[in-house]
Every structure is written in structure tokens, then in C-alpha cells.
């Protein structure tokens, strides 16, 4: 004769969780029926009990939300200040690097366009002002005239004075 086993823990847990019996043992076994009904009754009050234990007044939840918001705000502010610090540091580093790189290069001065007339004039003036033989004195005067014509004022006025004297 086969001895029928009582409900296993697995079957019992399944039944307690609202599942269907996997065999018809429960229908025949008084002991298992008692077991199941007792446990079911005991466990069924748990959800309600825990809900009433945590059914707190409205202000509790409000206070909790406010606390969470304030903690998030503090965290955000701290995060922002860190972000600001990081950006400022990065900007400073970039600036320093740029200055460093700029300083490393040799300074290039803008080259003025060479003016051939001006060069010629200067060469002539130089030649004239250097030891000039007397015979070339009029040429020196001529060079002076040319120079003053290029530069403008004082020489021009001297030339005019000389012209007036000649007259």
C-alpha cells in the first residue's frame, strides 16, 4: 500500500501564494487542510497590518518630500560649484598654455615695405653729408633740396629764403 505524502514546502508555499493545488491530496488530508488554513489566516493579515503600521499622516509624507528635495538641492548646488571650479581651472590651464606657447615663438615684427626712392634719397644724403669735395657742393645743395621736398617744411623754407636772397 502506497503511503501518501503530505504537502511539500513547495506545494504549501505555492498554495499560500494563491496557486492551485498540484495534487488532490489536500482534499483528502485533514492535517494539511488545517495547516493551510491556519497559515493562510495568519499570513493574510500581514499586508493590511503593514499598511496600517505605515499609514502615516499627510504631513509626514510632506516633510519627507521636503527633506528629499532639500538634500537634492544641496547636492545640486555642490555639483554646480564643483562644475564651476572645474571649468575655471580648465579655462586657466588653457590660458596659461596659450600664453606659454605664444611666448615660446620668436616675436615677429612687421616688416615695413622698402621704399626704393627713400633708400636712394638716404644714400644720396649720406654721400652728400660725408666728405664732399667743394666742386660737388651744388650737388649737395640739390640733394638737400630733394630731401626737403620729400620731407616738407624746414628745408623748403630755407630754399625759399635763398631764392629771395638771390632776387
Amino acid at each position, binding site marked *: 500500500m502506497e503511503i501518501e505524502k503530505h504537502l511539500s*514546502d513547495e506545494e504549501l508555499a505555492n498554495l499560500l501564494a494563491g496557486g492551485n493545488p498540484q495534487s488532490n491530496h489536500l482534499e483528502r488530508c485533514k492535517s494539511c487542510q488545517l495547516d493551510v488554513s491556519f497559515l493562510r489566516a495568519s499570513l493574510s493579515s500581514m499586508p493590511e497590518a503593514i499598511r496600517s503600521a505605515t499609514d502615516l499622516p499627510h504631513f509626514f509624507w510632506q516633510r519627507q518630500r521636503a527633506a528629499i528635495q532639500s538634500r537634492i538641492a544641496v547636492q545640486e548646488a555642490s555639483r554646480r560649484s564643483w562644475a564651476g571650479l572645474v571649468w575655471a581651472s580648465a579655462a586657466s590651464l588653457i590660458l596659461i598654455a596659450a600664453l606659454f606657447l605664444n611666448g615660446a615663438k620668436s616675436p615677429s615684427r612687421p616688416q615695413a615695405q622698402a621704399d626704393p626712392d627713400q633708400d636712394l634719397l638716404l644714400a644720396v644724403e649720406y654721400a652728400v653729408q660725408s666728405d664732399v669735395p667743394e666742386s660737388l657742393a651744388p650737388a649737395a645743395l640739390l640733394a638737400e633740396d630733394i630731401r626737403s621736398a620729400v620731407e616738407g617744411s624746414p628745408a623748403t623754407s630755407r630754399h625759399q629764403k635763398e631764392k629771395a636772397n638771390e632776387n
Partner: protein
Amino acid sequence: MATALTTTLESRPTARQGLEAEDFDNVVRQHQRQVYRVLFLLTHNAETADTLTQETFLRAYQSRASFRGECALNTWLLRIAANLAQDHGRNRRAGFWKRLVGFGDDTTQAQVEFPDPLPSPERVLLARKELEAVWKTAMSLPARQRTIFLLRFAEEMSLPEIADVMGLRMGSVKTHLFRAVSSVRDKLKEQRWR
């Protein structure tokens, strides 16, 4: 075979539902009660549950970018909460030796005060006694069995949800639950015949 222990997963959000910074207050509003309730179940202490609820939402806010809707939002929040409760339990155990001298038994914290339910005196009293017996029995279970047992029978979560929250496989969750039910059954029987 489909049983009540393998109920289907609840519908999952499509993408980052309600996790923008601007909407976060709504997320808190919607889920704070459940998170608090579960933490109360797991820590057995109202003050700790409150603190850890705040911490849960703070952590959720910090890592909101990592939530991609692979599970329900409440499952994700409860996973954070369960991890925090686990860490808290670890820290508490670590502090056990400090409390040992002078402060008595650590298990005194496990006494949960249930509020007096509304009317019908005798029946309510009996139900309350039964409930306290179940609660006391549940408290004596190993941590993981206890958590799974309470999430299933007090929070009425499905096994897939519990597996998600605890980061365990379904088979493992079932095994823990069966063991827990077996222990509870034995202990309740003992108490009944005393």
C-alpha cells in the same frame, strides 16, 4: 506550469519614465509610501525607514541617468532600497559588539508596533496576536529568507518582482521562500501547541 508564484511581470515603462529632474518630485510623491513600507518591513524601525527612504530617492536622483526602463520604476527604486537596507543591516551587525555591553539584546528592535486596528475587540485581538506571532517568526528567519518572505506575504510582490529587486534568479527566490514558509509553519505549530 503557471502558478500564482510565477505571475507575470507588471508592465514596464517604455523609456526613462518620469525620471527627468523636473519630474522627480512626482516620482517621490508616487513611490515614497511603498519605498517607506518596504524599508519598514526590512529594517523594523520607523526612523531608519524614513532615513533610508530619503537616501533611496537621493541615490535614485544621482543615478537617474542609468535607469533605462528595463524594469518597472518601483522595482528599480525598491532595488536601491533593498541594497540600502542590506548595507544598514551589515553596519548594524558590525556595531553589535559595541551595543553588546549595556544595551541588551539586538533583537528588541525587531519588535514592530502595530497600531490598534479599528473596532471589533476580541476578533481583532486574536488576529493581532496571530499577526505578532507570524511577525516574530518571520524575524527569526535568516536575512534573505526573511526579506523574500516579507516581500511576498506582507508587500504581496510577485516572485519575478522579488527576483528583480533582490537581484536573484527566480529559482533562488523560490528556494528561499519555500524554506521560509517551512520554518514559519514549524515555528507557528510549536507556538500553537505550547
